[in-house]
Every structure is written in C-alpha cells, then in structure tokens.
C-alpha cells in the first residue's frame, strides 16, 4: 500500500505570553492511500493543530512530516502553498465559501491558483466535482442561496477538484443537523469507496464507526489508534433516521 502521510515524533509548541503550550507532544503515525481516518479527542487535545500540520498550514516545532514522500518541514511558505494547492483538499466546519459567488466559481477557486489548468478545463473539472457531490443542478446557485448541507457539498467539491492526495476535514458536520450530517457522511464514504484518502476530525464518537481507522488524541499524545473492521454504512443509517422534517 502506498504511504500518503508519515509523521515522526511531531511536536508543536505555542508561546503565549512567556508560557509555552505544548499542543502536540510527539505524534507519530502513518496513513496509507485509501484510508478513511477519524481523529477524535477532547477539546484542546490538539486535533486542529494536528490537522493544520497535516494540511501544511502550520509547521511543527520539531519532528518530520512526509506528504506523498516529500518532506514538508524544510519547505518555504510558497512551496507549502503550492503543495496545498496540488495535494490537499480542505473541508471546514463553517464551509468557508466565497460570499455571493456561484457554486462553480467557488469550486474553480483552487484551480485558479494553478497556472497549468486552462479556463475550459477548470470549468469542466468544477462541474465534474459538483456532479460527484450531487449538485449538478445547482451549478450557478450562489452561496447565499444554498442550505448548510448544500454549502458543505460545494466545499467538498472544492476539496476534490484538484484531485488531492488527501482530503482533510475539521468538524465538517459540526454545523449540520443529524440528517444532513449523515448525508455528508454518505458522501465521504462514497469518496472513500472510490479510493480517496480522508482524514476527518470530529467530536462525535458515532462517526468513528463509519470510518476505517480511528486515532484518539489527549493532551497532544496519540492514546489510541485502532482499525475498524466493521465499518457501518451511512446509507443504512440515513434510511433508518425518522423522517420528521419535511
């Protein structure tokens, strides 16, 4: 199996007013292509810090990080930006779509920062990504004309459009109701089934049962790393939800 992410003893210290906060205290693990990993832990355990490191937004204080075989720690700002552009897809809790911008334009955004992609190709790929998240009929809808679930789908399409090595999601279902959360989870499972590598940070222990692997953090340490042999199907779970709303 191909290794996508390798962390070796990652530490991240923050210095706040003379005090040092150890957000990550020596985290090591390897993630292979096609894994659907959930990262869990209490608030302040370092999940977001870890995800930012994985997403090349943050550099660790010490330790080695290899993304797709490339060492990230020694990279400069601009190289990391390029790396994010080509290898990483982010999905945020609050969607972070551009205001008053159509779905297609939002999804095209990462490709605009890639000079190798032509305008025609850009649009075509954006439409393909939107179709794959079930929004083929919402291409020209603006972000303020969509529901939370739809906005998150657009965000997922945007994370997919550059064909990344890994998709990173931080509380991607945190702002959604149960039903919509499951719909998004169905989507992630579909992506997983198609061979995407996904790292999904969540508070919700239920969600871990729908992923193939679960990593638990506490105080900046990995305290558990378990393979899930009985991955539940989100489609089934969705079918069993009582249809109360509309």
């Amino acid at each position, binding site marked *: 199996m191909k290794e996508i992410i390798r962390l070796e003893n990652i530490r991240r210290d923050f210095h706040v007013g003379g005090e040092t906060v150890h957000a990550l205290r020596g985290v090591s693990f390897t993630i292979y292509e096609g894994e659907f990993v959930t990262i869990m832990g209490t608030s302040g355990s370092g999940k977001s810090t870890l995800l930012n490191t994985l997403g090349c937004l943050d550099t660790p204080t010490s330790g080695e990080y290899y993304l797709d075989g490339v060492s990230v720690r020694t990279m400069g700002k*601009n190289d990391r*930006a390029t790396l*994010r552009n080509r290898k990483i897809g982010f999905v945020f809790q609050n969607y*972070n779509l*551009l205001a008053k911008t159509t779905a297609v334009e939002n999804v095209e*955004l990462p490709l605009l*920062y890639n000079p190798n992609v032509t305008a025609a190709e850009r649009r075509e790929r954006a439409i393909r990504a939107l179709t794959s998240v079930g929004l083929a009929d919402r291409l020209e809808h603006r972000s303020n004309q969509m529901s939370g679930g739809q906005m998150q789908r657009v965000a997922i399409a*945007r994370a997919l459009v550059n064909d990344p090595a890994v998709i990173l999601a931080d509380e991607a279902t945190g702002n959604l109701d149960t039903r919509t959360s499951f719909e998004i989870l169905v989507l992630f499972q579909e992506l997983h089934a198609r061979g995407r590598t996904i790292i999904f940070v969540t508070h919700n222990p239920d969600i871990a049962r729908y992923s193939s692997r679960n990593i638990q953090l506490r105080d900046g340490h990995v305290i558990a790393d378990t393979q899930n042999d009985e991955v539940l199907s989100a489609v089934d779970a969705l079918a069993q939800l009582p249809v109360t709303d509309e």
Partner: protein
Amino acid sequence: MNVTNLFKIALRALANNKLRGFLTMLGIIIGVASVITMLAIGQGSKRSIQAQISEMGSNMIMVHPGADRRGGVRLDAADMETLKLQDYNDIVSECSYVSLATPTVNSSGQLIFGANNTPSTVYGVSPEYLDIRRYEVEDGDFFTEQDVLTSAKVCVVGKTVVDNLFTNGENPVGQVIRFGKIPLRVVGVLRSKGYNSMGMDQDDLILAPYTTVQKRMLAITHLQGITCAAVDERFTDQAMEEIAEVLRRNHKLQRGDDDDFTIRSTQELSEMLTSTTDLMTVLLAAVAGISLLVGGIGIMNIMYVSVTERTREIGLRMSIGAKGRDILAQFLIEAILISVTGGIIGVLVGVCASLIVNAAAHFPIYIQPWSVLLSFAVCTVAGVFFGWYPARKASQLDPIEALRYE
C-alpha cells in the same frame, strides 16, 4: 501564478461588492474630475486673456490723465483734464515708435431707434481706432477724417447694438439713431468679436468721431485718453518713454515732478493678468489636488477595511494554495482597477463639468491634455500607493489566524 487568473480573481471579487467598489471610486472620480475642471477653468481664463490681449493689440499703449495713484482718491477734477488735443497731435508727429494713435472720449446714455431703446456707451475716437483695436467693419464704412473735422453726426455700431435696436431686421447702415437728443447716422457695422474673458460684450459699443462726442455730447475740450499702437510690441517700452517725454514737456513738468498722466501698455496688463491667472490656477489645482489626495486616502481606508472584513476569505484562499504574493497581487489589482476605472470616469465627468461650466456660465475653459494625463496618472499612482499597504498587510496574514478570524 498567471496574470489572467489574478485579474479574473480580482474582477470577481470586485463584482461581488459593486457598492464598495463604487464608493471607493467616488473619491477618485471627484478628485480627478475636480483637478481637470479646475485646471480647465484656470487655463481657460489664462488663454482667453492672452487671446483677448492679442486681439486687442498686444502693442497697445493707453494714456490716461491723472497720476498713477492706484487705489488712491483723486481729489481734484482738474487733475483729470490734463490731456489735450495738442498732446495727441505731438505724439503722432514726434513719437517714432508710435505707429497709430487715437484720442478717446466716451459718453454713456440711452440709444433710441424707433420704439427700441438700449443703454450703451458712445466711444469718441479717430479712424485709427479701428486698426489699433483690431476691429473690422463688416457692413458699410468707417467714418472718415473729414467726419472728425466736421464733428459729423455719424457713427459705427457693434453687433449687440444692432441686435437691440434693429429688431425688425432693418439694414442699420443709413438709418438714423438717437443718442439722447443727438441724431447719429449709422455708416457702418463692426464685425463681431464676442465676449472677452471678463465676460464683457465687445460688440456692445458705438464709435463716433471724437470731436462729435467732445462738442455735441460732453461739451469738453480735453481728452479722456489717448490710445496708441507701438510700431511693434518689442518697442512698447521705447514708445512709452517717447510718449512720456512729449507729455512731460507739453505739461511743463519739472524734473522731480510726478507725472500728471498714466501710461499703461497691454503688455504690462498681459503680464499682470497672466500672473494673476497663474496664481489662480495654482490655487485651484492645489484644492483639486487635495481632493485627489482625499480620494487616495479613501481607497486606502476602504481597502484596509476590506482586508479586515475579508480576512476569512484571505485565509481560505491561502489554505487552498494562494501564495502571499497572489493575495498581494489580487488586492493591488483590485486597487488599480478601482482607481483606473475611477480615473476614466473622473476624466469624463471632469470634461463634462468643464463644458457645462463653459456653457452655463460663459466661463472660458481650456482642457489641457497634460492636465488630463497628469490627474489620471496621479490617481493611478494614488491607487497603487494607497492600495499597496493594505494589500501587503493582507498578504502577510497567517492562514490559520485568518481562517479563525471572526
């Protein structure tokens, strides 16, 4: 990162907030428009003064009675009667640098023709006046030396007088009009010269032999002025010296006595007026420049606010691969697009405003290409300059911080 994409990004960002873009532009529009309008007015008055002076005759010299006491009070009416016909005759015969000269006396009053009457001023002159002031006769003839000798009751009228008196389209030449009680036969009509830069109608006048005005209207023997033309404008100073010499001798002034007359040349006048209009232009341009500066600060302010307002957007762009310089470029391009568009609109508004000022207030304007270029360049530079700082601040944001920004 390619430039077309950056433009696309900046354009989309602007299109998403048209009102903000427009408000930012407003400062620039007003700045550029006012610079252009102010300079157009300043340059326009300067040019029209120059044009008027050269029309009037740039070699013209005017002699008036009374000492040159600018702003002072003239106590004695006799002071004003020092110029005599002899002075005029001597200037004509003795001053080699003076090519033409005419006595001047004038009288204001009511002009009457049929049922029409209009207030006007009759200028008493000799036929040389025509050449000195560069008037032309359009219709009929000018009065002659003979008319001067006989104090003939004849006159030559300007277009405005014709329009006011001959409302039924009669041919003025040969008609008899009345100036107060004195009937005057119209022998010619002057070609129109239009308004001068002070908004004075140069066609609202009647010329009559100076003898007629002196004897029949004013009952005086002295002259109110002598208007001369130097042989060439380069010899204006020499001509003025010669005239002063003749007058001092005729008036029996001793060494050390003040002149009892004043000599002015259009050249002096021109220099004086030009320096006034130059000062006016500088002041107007300064006012306009300040509004351009305020416009620039407006750009900076709005760009700065928009950087703060759009922190999350910047964080997002960075997280999906925008480099610091892409963000810098985006914000700079936004600022430049705003200021260039604002500049273009400002130029159009400025040109229109100038034309309106010209049409509505008869104010002479002249839009100088360099003033358009200059204000446009200044506004673009202001856009870049004032857009740069907020853009740089945006580009230096930490993506994580920016994403977390509430």
